[in-house]
Structures are given as C-alpha cells and as structure tokens.
C-alpha cells in the first residue's frame, strides 16, 4: 500500500510540472536529435546522414522561442503565431514553455538547454532579459533577442538585441476612443501588475484622454487600478464594479492578461464598454461559447509581437546585422502597434471619432505628434503624479 501511495504521490508531483516544460513533440524531437548526435559520434552511416541533415538546416537558422505559457490569447500566443509563419517558411523553431514565475529558478536551465542543443537564436520576453544578457557573453556565437523591453544600447551585449513596442502610441489611440465614448466623463484603465511596460500603456492612454479633452473641451477623468496578478479575474471584476459604482466610470481599458476576463465580465454585467489588449479580443470571443462578452469589446489595442519576429528574421536573412547591440523600437509607423478596426467598431463608434483617431494615427506615425511615454518620466513619483492629475 505504501509503495502504491509513493508512486501515486510521485505521479501527482510530476503532474504539477506538466503545465510547464516544452511542448512534448518538441522535446521528443530534441531527444531524437541528441540521440542522432550521439550515434554520429560513434561513426558509420548515421554520421553522414546527420551531417546531411545539418547542412539542410544550415540554410535557415534554428530559433528557440522561450515563453512562460502559451494560451494567454495575447502576448505569447501572438509571438507563437509569428513563429508558426516562420516554421512554414522552413525555419526550425522550437517553442519552450517555462511556466509561471514560481518556476523562475528553472528559467536559466531552459535557456541553457536550448543553447546546448545548438539553437542559433534565442527569442524570449522581458522576463528573461537579465539571464540572456549574462548568457550572451558566455555564448558569443549564439544570438539573443529579447522583446517587450527597453534597454539602452550600452546595456546590451554585441550579440543581443531588444525589441521594444511603443505601446504608448497604441494606447494613446484607444485613450482617445475611451474619452470620446464616455458618457459619464470617467474612464478606467485596469492593469494586472505594475511594471515599466504596463505603466507605458497607462501613460499613453492617459495622454490620449487628455488630448481628446483639450481638443474637444471635455473633462474626462481617468481612474487607474491594479489587481496585483495576471490570473486573478475575481479581484479584477470587483475593482471594475467598484469603479462603476463609486467613480461612475463607463469605459474600461484592460492591460491585465488573464485577469482582464474579469473586466469584460463586469462590463457585460453593467452594460459598459471595454477595450481589449494585445490581440483582437472581440474576435476571440465572438465565435466562442460566450459571444455576449464580445459585445462589450469596442476594440483592442494591438501589439503585433508575431509580426515583429517575422520582419526581424526576414531582415536577418537579408544580411542586415544593424540590430545587434541595439534596441529596436517598433511603433505605429512600423505597424507594430495599433487598434482593431472591425465592423463592430465601425457600427458603435461615431464617424467623427473614428476619423479623429485615424488622423492621430497618421500624425503619430509620421512623427508630427509625439506621445508621452513612461520612459520620459524621471522617476516613479513623476509618473504617479501624472496618473493622479488625470483622476
């Protein structure tokens, strides 16, 4: 009996690891490759075969995409979609899922693993920047691509680049929209966990609301809150209900990952407008089991992570090497951020508002209009003051 139990417990423990870890097919492939390599060392025909394969692969670089968890319907999935396009083009892309922050002690091991398997390019989000910068010096032949982070060039090793998305520009546009659509004169922005990138979303949004006020003589206020987690929709829902009740807010912008689902639900309950983030969240709900959730999502601020990977690897393939050691900034001008302009948006948003947003988009893209960024603030106090002044 005890034996059975210990087996059961071990099984239970290993289940907890299932949620993270690489996709199983990828792991088997990797294992097969290692075996092949081992066989190759022993000589014989196998060696010739492996070499031939390696040569075939050499034409397209091998990419390892390191993410926390797929299935977030936004950030990581958008990156994976881009990687799928690259896969179709013949790139050997291996996606590694490392799990949430409780598995942070394993992050470095995961990256070391793919490096040892000989992947040429490591693509990973801001979470892994420090680890990558350290490994970049140990592995000078590999190339490291961090995304969604804003490092200055002197922080970056020569074999590393960093993709930064101008989320403030996209948020500016939905901020204008929120201000225009608000009937009560208060709009909300609700985030998961505060960090520089998230604060950049907030800064752009507030800037958009303020500029709409200045242009139209309105006095729309912004209320901001954080629910403290990316996976706590319950707290998020309560936050939004409180903002409806006590702040009288009626348009809500979610920058909260999974917790954002709680915001949509509160909006459905209260009949308020919501604005999605990262990917087209209207599209992800309209064909789902709960289409009523789509009916509150006016638009979504887009952050085209996947597209940025595709264009980056295309320019690498063309022989461009100017990105190494620098941060690449992608904004409206590069079509890397934006908003969803679908039928639902067109039906529900008055034409003059749509035109105004479209005009602002053109102006920002051309550089005529500059959107305030979190990175412009000297410190957090200045940012907090900015948020408070908007409320």
């Amino acid at each position: 009996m005890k034996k059975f139990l210990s087996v059961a417990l071990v099984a239970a423990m290993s289940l907890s690891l299932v949620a993270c870890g690489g996709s199983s097919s990828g792991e088997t492939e990797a294992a097969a490759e290692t075996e092949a390599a081992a066989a190759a060392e022993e000589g014989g025909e196998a060696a010739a075969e492996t070499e031939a394969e390696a040569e075939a692969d050499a034409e397209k670089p091998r990419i390892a995409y390191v993410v926390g968890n797929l299935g977030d319907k936004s950030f990581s999935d958008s990156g994976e979609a881009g990687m799928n396009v690259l896969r179709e083009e013949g790139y050997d892309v291996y996606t590694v899922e490392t799990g949430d922050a409780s598995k942070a002690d394993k992050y470095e091991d995961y990256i070391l693993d793919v490096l040892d398997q000989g992947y040429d390019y490591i693509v990973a989000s801001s979470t892994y920047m420090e680890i990558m910068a350290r490994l970049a010096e140990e592995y000078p032949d590999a190339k490291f691509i961090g995304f969604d982070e804003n490092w200055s060039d002197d922080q970056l090793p020569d074999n590393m680049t960093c993709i930064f998305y101008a989320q403030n520009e996209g948020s500016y546009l939905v901020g204008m929209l929120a201000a225009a659509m608000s009937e009560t004169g208060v709009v909300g922005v609700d985030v998961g966990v505060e960090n520089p990138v998230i604060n950049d979303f907030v800064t752009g949004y507030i800037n958009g609301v303020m500029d709409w006020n200045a242009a139209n003589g309105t006095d729309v206020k912004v209320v901001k809150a954080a629910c403290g987690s990316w996976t706590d929709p319950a707290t998020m829902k309560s936050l939004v209900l409180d903002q409806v009740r006590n702040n009288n807010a009626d348009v809500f912008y979610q920058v909260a990952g999974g917790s954002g689902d709680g915001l949509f639900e509160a909006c459905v309950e209260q009949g308020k407008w919501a604005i999605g983030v990262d990917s087209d969240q209207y599209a992800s709900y309209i064909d789902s089991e709960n289409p009523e959730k789509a009916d509150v999502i006016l638009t979504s601020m887009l952050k085209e992570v996947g597209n940025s990977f595709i264009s980056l690897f295309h320019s690498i393939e063309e022989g461009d090497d100017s990105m190494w050691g620098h941060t690449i900034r992608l904004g409206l001008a590069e079509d890397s951020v934006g908003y969803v302009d679908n039928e639902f948006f067109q039906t529900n948003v008055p034409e003059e508002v749509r035109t105004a947003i479209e005009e602002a988009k053109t102006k920002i893209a051309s550089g005529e209009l500059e959107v305030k960024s979190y990175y412009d603030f000297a410190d957090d106090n200045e940012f907090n003051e900015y948020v408070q002044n908007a409320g």
Partner: protein
Amino acid sequence: MTIDWIAFIAEGIRMATPLVFAALAALICNRAGMFNMGVEGMILCSALGAVIFAHYGGSVWIGLLGGIIIGLATGMFIAFASLTGKADLYLTCIAFNLMATGGTVFVMYLLTGEKSTTSGAFRSYQIPVVDIPIIKDIPVLGRIISGQSLITYIAAAAVFFMWFFLKRTRIGLRIRAVGENPKAAESVGISVNKIGYISFAICGVLAGLSGAFMSMSWVTFFMKNMVNGRGYIGLSAQNMAKGEPVGSALASLLFGFTDALATTLQNQTNFPVEFLEMLPYLATIFAIIITSIIAINKRRRIEQGAAK
C-alpha cells in the same frame, strides 16, 4: 469622493464567501486533529470541476453538484493518502496543491485546448442571485442582505450547521474527541480513521462550494491559479478563531472586508497599490497577535485563580 458604503458592505460579504467555506473546510479537519493545507488545491480543483460539469451537463445545478463532487473526491484522495496510506499529511497537502496547480491546467488543456482560461471554450453559468421578498424592501439592510448569490446564503447556513454539528451531534462530539486525543478516543472504541474520512468528506463538500462560488458566481469561468491564496486565508481565519465556526466566519468576514477596502481605497485614493495589496495579510498578522494576547491573558487569569 462619494463611496457607496452600503454596496461596499455587500461587496465585502461577497468577497468573504469563498473564505468562509475555506475556513469551515479547514476547521472541520482541524477539529479532527488534522491540519489540512490542501484546502487551496481542493478549491482550485472544484472551481474547474464546476465549470466542466456545468458545460457538459448544460445546467448551473449540475455544475454546482460537480464542484461538490470534485471537492469530495479530492478530500477523499488526501484522506486516503494520509489515513490509509499513512503518508505525512503536510507533505501530501503540499504535493496535492502543486498537483492541483498543474493538474487543473492539464485537464483544461485536454478538454478545451486552452492553457489559461475556459472563458471562451466553456459556456458561462452563473449561480442565481436571490432577492429575498420583504427584506429586499428594507432600506439599508435590504441592499446588504438581499441580492447575494445563493451560495452566500448557503455559507451563512453552513456556519450555523457547523456549530450545531460540532456541539450538538454525536458525530461532532466524536470528531472533537479524536482531535483532542486520538488515543483516548480509540480506547473508547471510536475509529480514528473513520472519523478522519468523515471530516475530510465534509471538508471536501465545503471546499467544493467555495470553488463553485469562485468559478460560477464571482466570475463565470475557470482560470489557472484563480483561487490566488484564498484557501490559505481561510486556513488562517479558522486558526485565528481556534477552530470555532462562528469566530472563523467572523475572521473570514474581516478578510473579506479588508479585501473590499483595498479595492475601494485603490480606486478612491492615491495609496500605493503595494500597500493596499498588503492590507489583508497585515490584518491577518494583527488579528493573530490580538487573539493570542487574549488567549495568554485568559490562561494567566486561570493560573492566577488556581494559585489562590
């Protein structure tokens, strides 16, 4: 700044509901002499179980039943490991919580192909909100007491039943006897294992209700890690009240209200978010200090009385 304090109280009660169940679930095991840390994982599993049953059964009631069944099953699983298998209860519970975190995502992925939430793949069901006739027309009280989720009323009833069960029934007495001195209880012919299983069964049903509230009332979908430590808070709530049902419920309400207060303060004031997030836990520490001071004073008085 105009805060709707009546709605605030109603919200505090809503936020306390899963905590009350979690506290009662931990309490019954505690009274039987078992410190059940697995409540957190049991709630998480039940939350997922509820949405799965509701989706495939096509009814909110099947979902509620499903949540309870899964809660019961997980309770039996831990009981089997620790009572029949004689595995260390703490280790079993830690392993179980880890398993629940990964296992729920795994099951969700098998059924829906999603790794984060069932909000798109499963139809949402909500346990009905009850408007109590007459009471709902009473000015202030009506807005607080009426219009809560059905499960919230079940929570209030559960507190009373737990008190009655422990104090006034034969089996309740046996549970307390086993909890206080298992060897003595065994010597008078009480089966410690049987009592343990019964406690875990009750614990499972309560955890199931807590999970169903999370995924079919507060919000109407399952999301990975959506319990976010509420099971542990329930555990400390019953600890604070030294295993008394009414006290545990009051402690849970205290946590519910600090949670609601953190929410409201965040929207109405400029307090740093980190400070507000800290509030419920700060309240825990203070509450534990206060309760232990009271306990120490009480003991000292008894000792002084004995010395006379």
